């Protein structure tokens, strides 16, 4: 049996769901953020597989853009998480409950 791009897209869908479940279920800000990164990598896999299937270069090029944007997001995200951690010595989002109503 050959592994066609369709299998990669199915794998990417599974990874995306695992990432989304991680964001929704885990309570540690760092782990949630890692789950978001997993979702972005699932998207990258989808782009590459679809580009291969359609024989278009757009898929591969898109991945480069996604990686650059994800890197920028990491810079800001980690800074915010570190600021929160410094003030409270916890990265659990359950203890961030000052704002509600």
């Amino acid at each position, binding site marked *: 049996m050959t592994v066609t791009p369709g299998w990669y*897209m199915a794998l*990417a869908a599974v990874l*995306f769901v695992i*990432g*989304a479940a991680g*964001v929704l279920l885990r309570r540690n*800000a760092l782990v*949630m*953020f890692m789950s*978001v990164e997993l*979702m*972005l990598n*699932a*998207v990258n896999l*989808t*782009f590459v*597989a*679809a*580009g291969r*299937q*359609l024989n*278009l270069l*757009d*898929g591969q*090029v*898109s991945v480069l*853009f*996604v990686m650059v*944007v994800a890197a*920028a*997001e990491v810079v*800001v*995200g980690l800074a*915010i*998480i570190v*600021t*929160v951690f410094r*003030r*409270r010595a916890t990265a659990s*989002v359950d203890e*961030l409950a*000052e*704002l*509600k*109503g």
Partner: protein
Amino acid sequence: MTNMDFLAIGPEVAVTAAAVLLLMVEVGGKPPKWVWGWIAGLGVAAALGLSIAQWVLGRGADANTYFSDMLVLDGFAAFGGIVVFTLTALGLAASWRLVASLQRRGAEFVALVLIAAAGMHLMAASAHLIMLFVALEVMSISFYVLVGITRNRADADEAALKYFLLGAFASAVFLYGIALVFAGTGHLSLYGEEDFLGATVILRPGVLLAGIAMLIVGLGFKVSAAPFHVWAPDVYQGAPSGITGFLAAGAKVGGFAALARVLTVSFDAYSDDWAPAVAVLAVASVVIGTLLAITQEDIKRMLAYSSVAHAGFILLALTAGDAGVEAVWFYVATYAIQVVAAFAVVAAVTGAAGGRSPLDAYTGLGRRSPILAGSLGLMMLAMAGIPLTTGFIGKIGVFRAAIDAGYLWAVITALVATVAGLYFYLRVIVRMYMDAPEEAAPAIPVPAGVGWTLALTSAATVALGIAPWPLLNMLRDAIPL
């Protein structure tokens, strides 16, 4: 490269150059604050001028795509630029107290606002899904930082973290939507998509439809449409009041510009599939936003839930597809002006760097500061949709578009919600004018920047509420290529 290429990206170049210059001057010489004001002011003025030039030279029959179909210059993008850069100027003027309170970091703050403005305009001008994603992230990442920019309040950190985590999640969903649309059609260019879908019948469009749904979810998050609105109240409340108005208005303008262009241009052929979903989101937003706004005791949370309801009204117009774009623009542009003005008042009353703003702080504001109370009262009336304000004309426009599209049930629900919404808007006015202030409550001074913002926004809200025709005529050309 032609001159039109440069014009197509001119406003972004102007504000980005101003942001870079500002940071370099700051590193080099520690200039006084008025230098920041001049650099930012000139950058925004140049961007606004270039947007008007785009409007004059690039709309209607002159509309075209540039940079290998990455950017589009049409009436839609040019009008978006005029709205975005006007908002940027108003937002910066209203937040000048906040800039001053940040000391040396004020330069970063101003630069971030300028970069966010570039992202917002790009969202209206993108002709390619990856370009749109980059524009969305330029805006969003700047916003995450702006929310947490005051380091001395714990609730600002919390708001920034919540906004960041949920925003990154929504961006990932949006991006997966792009990937699925690409997998389903083989196109990433919005106009390539339109041509392909107009000429091809896809027998099993499941992947494409899933992709469209995820694009709507991702952008629905950015414009805080229910049920993707949970971040909005916390972020609005925790963010420094001086900039909350710009965050709220900018995300709406950029998000709805992107949503309108993607849905009505690329996926017009599938409007029977997405329009009912948009109608359901619209009704959910209007009902949830209105019901939750009623119970709020903090004006920033109240405005956040009211912004959810307004997102619903704007989505109603989108159900009409192409025919609703003018109503979307009128509503978005006038609502953005109202919300910037409302938060400018909040910043003056409870501090530009402050977070919470309980309704009790507004008791007797009519006597403590007639200018602030009058402006906030006018904005409340406009948001409620009282005649002779822009809010009324905007609501008429979106209701008519949705009725023409056959969503009478959605319009009736929204009308009921509008009446219910009067309660929480008028409650603010009653607090300000009917209740006496505490004995010791001092008069509140109006900072110059806030004063200018309020004067211009109030004038625009009333003038366009009484005579909306100039703007309505202009909007006939503000349609996508």
